[in-house]
């Protein structure tokens, strides 16, 4: 058992994946010699060589497009997009090619890519460095989407993601890169990354969340105890496909649901979650499913980001509204 930051836990997970399968490649800007701008790929080029850990030219579309070709050849590329806001030059390759290749080829061609993207805000960054674009990818058929919320999950989820034969967009909450926790390196790499986790059990209301907002919700639940509220927190972990069973069971128990994520509210993934809960848990709901998210604006100047992002107070405000319905 070691106490690792999330960045380090991902590093260890990548290392394990590369040791296990010689077809695994890592490619992206500054991932090799520098070890990544967040040091997630630190030391890997030194140990696995430049042919497997590749510093690419500065072109996101090029990274993903060439990864498609490598995948067709039988490799298992792990692509890094340096920041969430820079994925859009690659969006066409991801949506038009990566997501559809298996479908187009009637199953002959697999796209076992993992596209790692640091995402989310709350780090006082400049434009394009704090986005939450997960909805676009969850909405795209043919892709699977995962997101870890803490170091142990980072370690265990990245490995089956890489091993998965479907293309996975793997979102890493950058504001949690420096969170530390105990990580058991012996946890089986086959541990499921597709199930949601009840991060905190409760009875009053369910907070459904993922990625950077999980810790926010756990903090909110802790603070809510003094208000006599016993909140359950469900960490989705997988955004596509979603583990509906865990979600529905929780909502049927607590009868109140609040979905929390950083993404701008309008037409976000939270909306799909709310709709589906309403459909499947209708007779259990004492209040409509509420959503807490970013304002429906572009990510603002960082000096106001704390008001843009869902924080403890906003989460609990939503809980109060749900309970008071």
């Amino acid at each position, binding site marked *: 058992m070691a106490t690792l930051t999330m960045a380090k836990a991902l590093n260890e997970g990548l290392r394990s994946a590369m040791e296990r399968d010689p077809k695994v490649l890592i490619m992206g800007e500054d991932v090799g010699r*520098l070890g990544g701008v967040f040091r997630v790929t630190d030391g890997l080029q030194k140990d696995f060589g430049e042919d497997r850990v590749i510093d690419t030219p*500065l072109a996101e579309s090029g990274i993903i497009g060439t990864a498609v070709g490598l995948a067709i050849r039988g490799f298992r590329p792990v692509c890094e997009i340096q920041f969430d806001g820079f994925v859009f030059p690659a969006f066409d390759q991801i949506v038009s090619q990566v997501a559809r290749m298996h479908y187009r080829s009637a199953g002959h061609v697999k796209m076992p890519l993992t596209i790692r993207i640091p995402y989310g805000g709350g780090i006082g960054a400049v434009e394009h460095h704090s986005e939450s674009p997960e909805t676009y990818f969850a909405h795209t058929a043919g892709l699977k989407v995962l997101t870890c919320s803490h170091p142990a999950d980072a370690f265990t989820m990245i490995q089956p993601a890489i091993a998965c034969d479907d293309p996975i967009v793997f979102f890493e909450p950058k504001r949690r890169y420096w969170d530390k926790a105990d990580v058991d390196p012996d946890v089986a790499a086959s541990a499921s990354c597709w199930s949601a986790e009840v991060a905190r059990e409760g009875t009053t209301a369910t907070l459904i969340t993922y990625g950077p907002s999980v810790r926010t919700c756990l903090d909110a639940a802790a603070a809510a105890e003094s208000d006599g509220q016993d909140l359950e927190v469900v960490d989705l972990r997988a955004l596509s496909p979603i583990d509906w069973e865990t979600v529905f069971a929780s909502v049927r128990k607590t009868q109140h649901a609040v979905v929390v994520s950083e993404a701008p509210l309008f037409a976000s993934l939270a909306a799909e979650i709310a709709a589906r809960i309403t459909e499947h848990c209708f007779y259990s709901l004492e209040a409509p499913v509420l959503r807490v998210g970013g304002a429906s604006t572009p990510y*603002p100047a960082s000096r*106001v980001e704390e*008001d843009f992002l869902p924080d403890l107070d906003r989460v609990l405000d939503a809980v109060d509204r749900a309970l008071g319905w």
Partner: protein
Amino acid sequence: MTEALLPQPSEGPDFVQLLTPEGERVEHPDYSLDVTDDEVRGLYRDLVLVRRIDTEATALQRQGELGLWASLLGQEAAQVGAGRSLSEGDFAFPTYREHGVAYCKGVDPVTLLGLFRGTSQGGWDPQDHGFALYTIVIGSQTLHATGYAMGMQRDGGSGAVMAFFGDGASSQGDVNEAFVWASVFNAPVVFFCQNNQWAISEPLEKQTRIPLYQRAQGFGFPGVRVDGNDVLAVLAVTRAALARARDGDGPLLIEAYTYRMGAHTTSDDPTRYRLAAELETWKLKDPIERVKAYLSRRGAGDAEFFAAVDAESDALAAHVRAGCLALPDPDPLTMFDHVYAGGSSLLDEEREQMSTYLASFAEAAR
């Protein structure tokens, strides 16, 4: 996959230089420059002030007053040379590092700080000084520049456009598409590439097999490489390129061969990927030292002059510092402003909800 696959330019027709690193005037067959002592003194002053803006902003970042700063240290001559070639009717499309070009275009450096302090996303009007907003997504601005130039072609504008980008950006699809557009439409755009040798940790060899200025030929327009640390050479080459564009002769690629003396941004640690020896080599090619040496040697700049420039740079630094600290924290509700030109009822509603929500607290959070 090793370094030094590209020949290091030092002299010859493929490398325009008019002032050596030691401060000696030299000639180039294709580019000449008639410049007075007064003008050179002015350029020296520009270089010193631009560097001082940059070092002050870097210090402010280290002191927590800016979240980030992208330093142009070492690239002053490239930016001042290009900036001083742009005339009133010309338009500049920068990346996020062209603080020297901004200065030359008359933009108050404090205007640039909001973006890095996190109090705005930029927020200036490009038409104020013919200087577009900083573009952080790599290379996008080259297409914008080309489109703007195409606009000038269509509405009788007599100016030209200069698109700034770096060596790393030359790999981006957008930049190559801009080359295509500019060439087939014969647009009056000068592509000014500051090849500072590094894209964060990736050296030039990761982006190209040939010298960057030669890329232009493949697209059908001329390319020229200039000593980016030589303000006189940059001035000469950019003047010629802009005149050519204004005359309707189409695009041109300038590769300003320079060096990123600092980190990519203040979040970067260059000691992890490049050798100190390389830095030392480039210190010997400092853009300001050579001008100082030139002025001193020919008696065009004395101690009094240099001291006056230093004093002026101190004052400018103080202005930058004070301006930075005085930048107001925006009201949270401003996040809803300007999302749409035509307004949005959804956002009006969200603004209202946030306003009510914020007012419901006994104390403000921040």
